[in-house]
């Protein structure tokens, strides 16, 4: 029941258009800190939305997180510290850019592995085909005869 309710809430929230995001009262007076806050919040997932960063979302939770990030930055924490804090509170799910570890090895390595394997297959097949372009096969006796016929008839 609770799960259904949660789903219903998620559904309602995700159907709302995201128009607002950062509010004027949230913006820090220090432009450098504000810029860092924007970069960080673009990499954090809004947990109650469907595939939106907290920078883009106008959900109340996203606002809370934006404010939280700014508070931590004002306290003098580094970007990494802020990220670590958010992960400790909400889990890896909050990161739009997953960390590289054993579980995400295939995620990060997969596309490049496919490029590598593809190149290797092409290279090996070419080697098998004896390197540079082999001249096209010579005409068979039949074909030569037909070619001669055609050439003769044109004369």
């Amino acid at each position, binding site marked *: 029941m609770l*799960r*259904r309710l949660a*789903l219903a809430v*998620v*559904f309602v929230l*995700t*159907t*709302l*258009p*995201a*128009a*607002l*995001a*950062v*509010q*004027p009262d949230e*913006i820090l007076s220090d432009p450098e800190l504000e810029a860092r806050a924007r970069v960080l919040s*673009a*990499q954090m*997932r809004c947990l109650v939305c*469907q*595939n*939106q*960063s907290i920078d*883009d979302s106008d959900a109340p939770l996203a606002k809370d997180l934006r404010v939280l990030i700014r508070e931590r930055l004002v306290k003098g924490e580094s970007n990494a510290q802020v990220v670590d804090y958010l992960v400790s509170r909400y*889990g*890896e*799910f*909050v*990161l*739009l*850019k*997953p960390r590289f570890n054993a*579980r*995400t090895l*295939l*995620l*990060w390595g*997969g*596309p*490049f592995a*496919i*490029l590598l394997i*593809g*190149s290797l297959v*092409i290279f090996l097949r*070419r080697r098998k*085909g004896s390197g*540079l*372009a*082999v001249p*096209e096969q010579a005409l068979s006796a039949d074909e030569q005869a037909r070619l001669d*016929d*055609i050439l003769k*008839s*044109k*004369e």
Partner: protein
Amino acid sequence: MIPEIGQFALILAFVTAIYQFSVPMYGAWRGDSRLMAVAPPAALLQFGLIALSFTCLTMSYIASDFSVQNVFQNSHSDKPLIYKISGVWGNHEGSMLLWVMVLALFGSAVAAFGGNLPPSLKARVIAVQGSISVAFLSFILLTSNPFNRLDPAPIEGQGLNPILQDPALAIHPPLLYCGYVGLSIAFSFAVAALIEGKVDAAWARWVRPWTLAAWMCLTAGIMLGSWWAYYELGWGGWWFWDPVENASFMPWLIATALLHSAIVVEKRNALKVWTILLAILAFSLSLVGTFLVRSGVLTSVHAFAVDPARGVYVLGILCVFIGGALALYAWRAPTIKTGGLFAPISREGALVVNNLLLTAACAAVFIGTLYPLVLESITGDKISVGPPYFNLTFGPLILPLLLLVPLGPLLSWKRADMWAASQRLWAAALVAVVVGVAAMAWQWRGPWLAPFGAALGAWMIAASIQEMVARTKFRSVPLNVAWARLKGLPGAAWGMMIAHAGVGVMVIGVVGITAWKQEIVTVMKPGDVMQVGSRSVTFLGESPISGPNYSADRGRFSISSGGNKVSEIWSEKRVFKPSNQPTTEVGIEPFIDGDLYVVLGDRAPDNARTIRFYFHPLVWMIWLGTALMFLGGCCSLFDRRYRVGAPKKAKAPIIQPAE
């Protein structure tokens, strides 16, 4: 009565599809021409029946017949007519009906225009199309019937989600489906060719125009969706790497690869086995996309588990068709003879690199989209994969491709001289460097990648123009001769140059909006002025207005540049009946250097409003670039060789005695 006719027609279409699949397939196997000959009429009949069914549903929507459950859930009597009609495909059941209608349309197009195909190939292609219809018609009839009735009939409907009530979004799904489903033709041709065990130039000439048409629809469909997101969602985002977007982007990438590899099959009789695989993959990814969007698996793995009937059914279809086609491929592909050897540095080699990079880029999108789902269902761990991931994987894979695009067409078939080809590009390289430096001077803030991106775009545009100049020998022949040459260029050459230039134009637009975007969030009272870039915007005030099915507050703004008033725009906050759902209409004023984008926000104390200003530099180039790609597709589609004698049956040459 009308919904029952629609229901009945749909059941008849299902029966026809079974017939269309089984009889011609059996006939082709037995070599029985009478059995094969039933394929075209069956395909036409199936399309007619589905079209009838679709018309019935549309009529129920237009009449606001709320006794039909689907109409009740997705329509409202106050909606404007166009959104009553677009509401037909604005929901699961109706959009699946549209899906099978487009599928049947393509099948009947093969039936109607495939007169010069070898009979057994034609019968098999139509039969495979029929088998896809069987699967999806049974899906609709068993799990997603759009004609279910309600008794007693409600008085008013629940309405269509207001952000979907938009002209671009009204035609976005039909276009996208033409693209998705159009790739089924390439799939059917590939499967039929595997069964026949024969792939030749004629086959490629048949497949390429269909793929091209589907690719064009997909391009236009994706662009419309992106454009809609840009002006409707309210902050000018145009691409989000959202799973639903990725679902349409993956088939697009593979279809692009297929378009290029089919050229090699056609011209050089090489890469045949690979091209067949791409044709299978392209449609398989369309099916994967349909599964992702239609099963509910995206909202949450749990949503999928709560109502699994639909998801499991589509997953079943997916496994049967992809698995079946790949198994057939593994079994039959080794028997297909390959021909046309080529050196690594050659046009063929360049197209192989194109295919490799596009496929790897598609793999990045695929892995990024599905990884969280797979990881969660296996280990229970929840992770998110968002835009930063795609920028770091898709980006590095697609950049080298874009860099190499101008070089490919300059290489000759079979064996080419790389040095000679690159020397011919010196002018384009010069233009690229100038543009890169100019971009750095114009906007030196922003990431270092931005000037490089601008140079890359310029490189592609300049190389296309240079190629055109070279082909007409513009500088060495009189102008009228050059003009005649220009007009005489084959459509495919025009298509390639325009489409490649289009990609370059789009790259510059993407760089503009990503790297140089400006954003101002502020609170304004009527009469306040805000400087946005080189222009100043005055908040004139707001007034309440009412639309056909909504009421709104409209804020008006006047834009002036250098003291002169340029124009006036407005932005609205709307509240839609009957759901009381709020939406925002943004105000956009396009200028040559970019769009000025104004969003009316929430009320603030003292009669003030939160207002957001954005300046999106060069964003029009994204739309122009995609439009050019589409136009390039058109030019290529009308190439003479697809119409004149192309797919004629190969005959042994008859030698005429010379007179």
